C-alpha cells in the first residue's frame, strides 16, 4: 500500500515537472501542407535554424489542402501550398476571421514522366489532358508502343492533383483508373517499374543524390498546342518566360501580415540565400513579378 502511494506520488511529480517545463520551451513555428514542397521547406528551415539559433520551425506534409485547412482553422502559422486557393477556401477563411496572405517562394516546372522504355518524346497539353481524363487509353494512339496507358497521380488532398485538374484537365474529372499515390516519390517508383506508366511530379523530385535525373525515367517535353514548340521542365528559361505550359509557383500562406520569426523566415527564403537553396534542390527561383507580390504581402 505504501509502495503504491509512493509510486503514484512519484508519477504525479514527474508529470507536473514535464507539464511545467513545456511552456519554457521556445515558441515553435508550425509549417504544414504541400507534399511537393515538404522536402524543400524542410531543408530551408534546417539551414535557417542553423544560422539563427533560438528559432524553432517544424515542417509537416499532408498535402496543400491539409495546409490550407490548417491555416483556416488556425492550427499552423505557415501553410505550404502548390496550388492557388479556391474561392471557396478564401471565403471560408474570411468567415473565420483569417486574412490569408500569400508568398511565392519557388517556381516548379511540373514534370510529366514516363518509363524510359516508352518511345514517346513529347505531348501537347490537349493530349496530356485526354490521357488523364481517360480518353486516350493506349499509347499507340499517340504513336507510342501498343500498351494500355497506366495512370499514376496524387490523392485529392494534393495541390498537384488540383493544379493538374484545373490547368491540364480543364476542370474535368480524372479517369477513375488512375492509381492515386501517397506522394511524389511513390509516383516515381511506380513509373520506374511500369513500362506503360505516366505520372506527374514536382521538378525537385526528378534528381538523385548526385543531382542527376533518376535513371530509368524519361521526362516528356510539353507543348501548349500542336503549333507551338515543346519544352522540358528542366529548361530554366522556358519555365521562367512561361513557354513551359505546366509551370507553377509554390506558395506559403500566413494569417494576416506575418511577424517575428515567421516574417524573418519568409524574408530569408525569398532572399538571395534562400533562393540559392531553392535552386540547389532542383526547383527554380522566383522572378521579379513574384518578388513584387511578396514585398506587397510583407508590408
Amino acid at each position, binding site marked *: 500500500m505504501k509502495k503504491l502511494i509512493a509510486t503514484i506520488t512519484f508519477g504525479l511529480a514527474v508529470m507536473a515537472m514535464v507539464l511545467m517545463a513545456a511552456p519554457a520551451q521556445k515558441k515553435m513555428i508550425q509549417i504544414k501542407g504541400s507534399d511537393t514542397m515538404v522536402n524543400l521547406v524542410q531543408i530551408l528551415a534546417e539551414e535557417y535554424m542553423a544560422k539563427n539559433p533560438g528559432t524553432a520551425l517544424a515542417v509537416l506534409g499532408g498535402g496543400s489542402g*491539409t495546409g490550407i485547412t490548417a491555416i483556416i482553422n488556425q492550427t499552423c502559422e505557415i501553410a505550404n501550398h502548390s496550388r492557388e486557393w479556391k474561392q471557396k477556401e478564401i471565403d471560408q477563411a474570411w468567415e473565420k476571421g483569417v486574412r490569408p496572405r500569400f508568398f511565392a517562394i519557388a517556381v516548379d516546372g511540373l514534370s510529366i514522366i514516363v518509363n524510359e522504355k516508352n518511345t514517346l518524346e513529347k505531348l501537347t497539353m490537349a493530349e496530356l489532358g485526354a490521357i488523364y481524363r481517360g480518353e486516350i487509353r493506349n499509347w499507340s494512339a499517340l504513336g507510342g508502343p501498343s500498351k494500355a496507358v497506366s495512370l499514376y497521380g496524387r490523392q485529392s488532398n494534393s495541390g498537384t492533383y488540383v493544379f493538374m485538374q*484545373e490547368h491540364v484537365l480543364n476542370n474535368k474529372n*480524372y479517369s477513375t483508373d488512375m492509381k*492515386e499515390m501517397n506522394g511524389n516519390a511513390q509516383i516515381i517508383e511506380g513509373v520506374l*517499374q511500369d513500362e*506503360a506508366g505516366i505520372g506527374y511530379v514536382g521538378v525537385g523530385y526528378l534528381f538523385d543524390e548526385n543531382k542527376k535525373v533518376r535513371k530509368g525515367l524519361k521526362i516528356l517535353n510539353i507543348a501548349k498546342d500542336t503549333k507551338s514548340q515543346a519544352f522540358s521542365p528542366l529548361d530554366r528559361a522556358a519555365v521562367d518566360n512561361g513557354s513551359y505550359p505546366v509551370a507553377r509557383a509554390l506558395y506559403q500562406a500566413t494569417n494576416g501580415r506575418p511577424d517575428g520569426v515567421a516574417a524573418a523566415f519568409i524574408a530569408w527564403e525569398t532572399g538571395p540565400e534562400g533562393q540559392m537553396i531553392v535552386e540547389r534542390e532542383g526547383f527554380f527561383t522566383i522572378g521579379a513579378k513574384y518578388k513584387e507580390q511578396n514585398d506587397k504581402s510583407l508590408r
Partner: protein
Amino acid sequence: MRWFKKGRWRQSSSLVFQLIETFWGGEGEDLPHSGEKSASLKSLRGKRTLARWKESAVKAFFFANGILAIIVLIGIFGILLSTAIPAFKEIPLAEFAKKTWDPTSPEKAQYGLLSMIVSTLMCTAGALLIAIPLGLGVAAYLSDVAHWRVREIVKPIVEILAGIPSVVTGFLGIVLFGPVIAKIFHTGHGLNAVNGSFLLAIMSLPTIISISEDSLNAVPSAYAEASLALGGSKWQTLVRVKVPAALSGIIASFMLGMGRAIGETMTVLMATGNARSFPHGFLDSIRTMTANIAIELGEVPYYTTHYYALFAIGLVLFIMTFIVNMIADVILNKYQQREL
C-alpha cells in the same frame, strides 16, 4: 477475500485482481469460519457486514467494467450514426448505389459506394482464400504433426508475425510483392487486388493459426485416443474427429481473421493503387472503403456533405463487420446445438 482465492479466480491473477486484493487489504485476514468462536459475537457481526459490503462493492466494480464495453460500443455507434445521417439526408440513396466516388469533382460531386464495397469484399475474400487453407494447415501441423521442439520455436514466431506494423507490411507490398506480381502476370505494375489480398492474408494468418491451434489442442485427448483405438489413421483422426470437435474455435479464428482483413487500412492504402474505378478482376487497382476514409478524412472541410459521406462509409463498414459477426454467432450456435 477467500472468494478470490478460490479456484478459477486465482488462476487469472491479472493485475486488476492483485490491485483489488491490495486495496481491500486481504493480506491474511480471512473471515473467521462460522465454526470458530474466537471473537465476540458483536465484532463478528461487524466483520460480516463489512465483508458483505466489500463483496457488493467488488461486484459493482466488475459490473461497471462489463457495462463500460457496452457503453463505449453504443457511444461509437451513436456518433457514427449521428454524423452519417446528414449524408443520407443530403444525398439520395440511389446516388450511393452508383459506382463512382468523386466528391471533389469540379464537374459534379459523385458519391457512389459500389466500387469501394466490391473492392473491400474482393480483397477480403482473396485474403481468406489464401489464409484459411494455409492457416488451418499450419495449425494442424503444429498441433498434431510437429515435434514439440519445432512447435516451441514456430508458434512464438507466428505470434511475432502479428506484431509487424501494417506500414511495414504495406512497404513490403510495394517493393517486394508488387514487382513480383507484375512479372508473373505481365501487368506492368503490381499495385492491385492480388497484392492487397496477399498482404492481408499475411496479416490475418497469425490470428487464424494461433486460435485454431489452441482450439485443436483443447480437444480432449480421449477423442483422438478413441479414434486411434478404433483403427483410424492419424489423418482420419485429424480430419474426421479433431477438426470437427474444434470447429467452433476454428470458425471463430476465420471470423477474427476476416475482421482484421476488412478493417485493415494502411497496408491496402499503400499496396492496392487506390484507383476509384469498378474492379473487373484481381489484377485491377482497387480502393477499399478504409483506404478511402484514410485518404480523404485528413483534408475534408468539416461539416460538409463530403465529410458526412465519409462517415456514411464508416457506417456501412460497421454494418458489414456486424453482419460478419452475427453470421459467425449463428453458425457457432447451430453447430453447438447439433453437438449436444
